[in-house]
């Protein structure tokens, strides 16, 4: 064979080999005890939707009980397999929690999350609340602190409420409440006379609410203001003057695509040159 042909064939084999390695990954099979190590190997890697971690269950129950694995957002259970359904980086938290760190703007209601909702309608015993999801959530009028059948809460159409989901899955209409399991409000309920409500991406919300949030620390040093952050991407800000409110709102919206350094220089400029 000519030299060109040889190079051509070699290139084809190399390419096929490369493809095989790519497509082998989705069909990774391992036993349950190995699955944890499969997971641990991939922590910090970029995964794509369609990747599968499958394993065989131990048949005899006399084996040492395998540990439970908790799949967070982005991972889904399909029988005995774990499927990746969002593209992102696999993260791990002790002892057995794995999730995919991804970005999105569209909110999907999740149980236990605190969100800012806008009352859109009042019908009988429930309020219809817009939370930015695919359908409106319902909020019972008895789900406020100190509310009874005779003592109705003072909630009007168009009010902002900070509430928590008690039911939020793909099969049922989401339901909200403004009290916790003991019946206390804990800051939930109607808020906001004045102030400004705007929308940010979900990733920024998580960065704001992270335990060691740098954005929150930078914001603390500015002027006095109040902020309510909803997990559905909605943020409400209130400050002494309208100008300050607008400044904070613009800063938060621009924080999304800035590195830490750019953000700090911007904040410093505002703190120096502003009112």
């Amino acid at each position, binding site marked *: 064979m000519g030299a060109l042909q040889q190079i051509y064939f070699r290139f084809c084999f190399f390419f096929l080999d490369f493809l095989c390695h790519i497509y082998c990954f989705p069909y990774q099979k391992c036993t349950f005890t190995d699955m944890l190590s499969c997971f641990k190997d991939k922590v910090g890697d970029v995964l794509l939707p369609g990747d599968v971690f499958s394993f065989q269950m131990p048949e005899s129950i006399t084996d040492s009980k395998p540990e439970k694995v908790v799949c967070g957002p982005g991972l889904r259970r399909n029988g005995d397999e774990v499927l990746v359904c969002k593209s992102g980086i696999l993260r791990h938290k002790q002892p057995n929690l794995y999730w995919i760190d991804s970005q999105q703007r569209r909110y999907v209601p999740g149980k236990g999350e605190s969100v800012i909702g806008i009352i859109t309608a009042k019908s009988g015993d429930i309020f219809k609340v817009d939370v930015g999801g695919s359908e409106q959530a319902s909020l019972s009028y008895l789900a406020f602190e100190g509310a009874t059948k005779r003592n109705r809460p003072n909630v009007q159409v168009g009010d902002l409420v900070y509430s928590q989901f008690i039911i939020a899955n793909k099969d049922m209409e989401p339901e909200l409440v403004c009290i916790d399991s003991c019946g206390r409000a804990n*800051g939930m309920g109607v808020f906001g006379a004045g102030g400004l409500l705007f929308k940010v991406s979900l990733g920024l919300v*998580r960065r704001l609410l992270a*335990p060691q949030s740098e954005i929150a620390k930078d914001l*603390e040093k500015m002027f006095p203001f109040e902020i*309510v*952050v909803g*997990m559905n991407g909605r943020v409400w800000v209130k400050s002494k003057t309208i100008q300050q409110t607008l400044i904070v709102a613009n800063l938060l919206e621009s924080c999304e695509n800035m590195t830490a350094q750019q953000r700090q220089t911007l904040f410093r400029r505002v703190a120096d040159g502003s009112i």
Partner: protein
Amino acid sequence: MANDNAKLSKNLLRMKFMQRGLDADTKKQLEEEERRIISDEHWYLDLPELKAKENFIIEERSFGPCEDLKYGRMSFKGFNTEVEKLMIIMNAPNEEELEEEEISRMETDITDEDMARRYESLVGSMKKKFAKKRERSAIEDVNQNATETQKKAFLKPQD
């Protein structure tokens, strides 16, 4: 009244208004008897027990517990004092756990030997405190004798 109970039928005794006056023991006995009756008369499937498949994978939809997100309402520089109090209360559960861990760590810093030594001296001082006058003088005599015997020995001065 005891005679009446013997004459009343079991069905009547099982009725709710008759059971209010009964003790817990008699109630349990009645329940057990009922269960036995049910299992004898009623039909049941003679199949091996199907164990529900234990799922070792738990799904969790929310980001909150994954990243330990804080409480959503925040207030800075005293703009809203109620919200600042809420921030401390709601974010505290994590800090309280840390404090408890620290306290437990502090306790284990003092080893068991140190604790035993402390208790030795404690027992002695508490004993003295609650001892009656005669016993107290007896204890002091013992201590003085011990010290005196030590002093009686002559110490040769070294050149």
